[in-house]
């Protein structure tokens, strides 16, 4: 969902980058920071109890739920609180471990881990987002499921474009999750590299040399998986910020699922 996390790119209103002197092998100055990292990493793939989530928890889902934080709070809280909210919202929806919303919000005298307003807000956003379109697919059906004549659910498709192809990224604005950030939406670029995609093999595991993860915009909804190729797109910084505002001789690279780009003329 569009929010502070994907519009701050390029902001100049901040002061210095903090904690530049953090030692290299001390990732967590406070013990509980490691615990939060452990929690959100280890909870991936844990079985669900309830219907709305046929997919096991994936990172795309967690990233979406991070984005449901109110912008005012997002700007003021620490990194770990975002993951805390994401995990709590997932638990309140999925029923994993039999954990209930009451347990998460301080019912029965336990300390409140998250506020009921935050959980409700996340639910509202999910309720809106799962009915919206994603790039490359028109709106889903009444159950939130996508279909396409170009891509087949659960099957990897072959790349349509090649390195050197000029492209422009599509426009979108949804309450759902996307990895196409505002700063490079609608911008012209050139495909620098192609990532062919494969469905990850549960027996062999990942790491075969091609991309082995699902289309984030759909995977984040927890209902379906599509495996669509990705392009590493190179943008001239002047095409993103404007000639007078970009550092000279600077290029930006962002990955774009095939659905994020449309070809612009012949390949170079």
């Amino acid at each position, binding site marked *: 969902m569009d929010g502070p996390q994907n519009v701050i790119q390029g902001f100049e209103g901040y002061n210095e980058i903090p904690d530049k002197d953090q030692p290299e092998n001390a990732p967590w100055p406070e013990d509980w920071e490691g615990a939060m990292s452990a929690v959100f990493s*280890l909870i991936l793939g844990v079985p669900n109890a309830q219907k709305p989530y046929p997919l096991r928890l994936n990172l795309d889902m967690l990233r979406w739920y991070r984005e449901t934080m109110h912008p005012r709070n997002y700007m003021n809280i620490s990194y770990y609180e975002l993951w805390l909210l994401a995990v709590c919202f997932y638990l309140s929806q999925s029923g994993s471990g039999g954990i209930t919303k009451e347990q998460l919000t301080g019912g029965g005298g336990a300390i409140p881990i998250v506020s009921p307003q935050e959980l409700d807000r996340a639910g509202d956003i999910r309720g809106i987002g799962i009915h919206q379109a994603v790039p490359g697919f028109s709106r889903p059906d009444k159950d939130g499921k996508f279909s396409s004549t170009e891509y087949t659910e659960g099957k990897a498709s072959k790349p349509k474009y090649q390195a050197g192809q000029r492209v422009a990224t599509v426009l979108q604005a949804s309450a759902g999750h996307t990895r196409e950030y505002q700063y490079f939406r609608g911008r012209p670029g050139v495909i620098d590299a192609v990532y062919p995609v494969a469905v990850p093999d549960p027996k062999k595991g990942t790491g*075969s040399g091609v991309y082995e993860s699902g289309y984030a915009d759909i995977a984040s909804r927890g209902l379906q998986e599509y495996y669509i190729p990705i392009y590493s797109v190179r943008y001239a910084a002047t095409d993103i910020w404007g000639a007078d505002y970009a550092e000279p001789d600077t*290029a930006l690279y962002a990955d774009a699922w095939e659905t994020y780009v449309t070809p612009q003329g012949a390949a170079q």
Partner: protein
Amino acid sequence: MNDDKQRPTEEGAGETPSALTRRQALMGAGLVGLVVSGGGALAACSSDSQPNANGSAGPQPEGPQPDPSRRELGGQPIYDAQPLDTATILPPLRDRVLALKSLLIGAGVLTEDRVNMYIDIYQNKVGPQLGKAVVAHAWKDPAFFNAITQPPPQKPFAATGVIADFLQKSLGLPPLPGFRFGPEGEWLRVVANGKDAATGQRVHNMVACTVCSCYPQALLGAQPIWYKSQQYRARSVRAPRGVMAEFAEAQGPAMVAKLKTYLASIDEVRVWDSNSEARFLVIPEMPPQYKGLSEQGLVQRITRNSMVGVEIL
């Protein structure tokens, strides 16, 4: 808990605020993310209150007081200290994280052992030393360098397998079931500073995740705080040389001068936003004076920050 007029309880409730470090006080209110650190970020910050002659904190005036160090937040701490009427005041983040952990363990979703194992892995086993071993080897072994920086076009993440084989053989790292290499390391792309094979230009690479914190953890361990900060995420894609200047200033005038010379010789700066599951490692340029060193000697001189591209060696 639901009294909107009450400030959130902080660790050591009942002690005066000056008895806590500023970091502790801010973390109690969950406000670490945007704080500008003074010199020595992780050292306890000094109290803002005027000390008495014997060094103890003076009497505190009534109510929340302006904190000049918080200009980052617009210098309006009174505004921030008054939560919205609709806000729920929650306990400190630390308490909530530990409560969530307990809840998950109690529900059988996680175990204490697994959580501790995870923490142990990133505190003691997986960290920048792995990336440094890769960089040092790449500098000494041109075939390895080419294999990881120029994968075949149809297998853009071939570097994962090459690096996994190298680290498992040379450092005896055990393979992880289900992974070729490890979490946040299955789809690695390695970008080298210096002469670009394709264009002949001299390039400098920098890596960011402008939306969250995606980072090649299998090679560099857990992300540093600065990498996750809104400040870095905002600025890296807009002013990469400015970011490098900031890191150089923190290291002193000699590094500033060195960076200036370096950047004058760079034809292009490339910033890589890690917005898919692909993860990027930067091979910094090897300073010429390192030429005779062994891989072990090189490893001691490579820095984590140079492998993200915000510093040079």
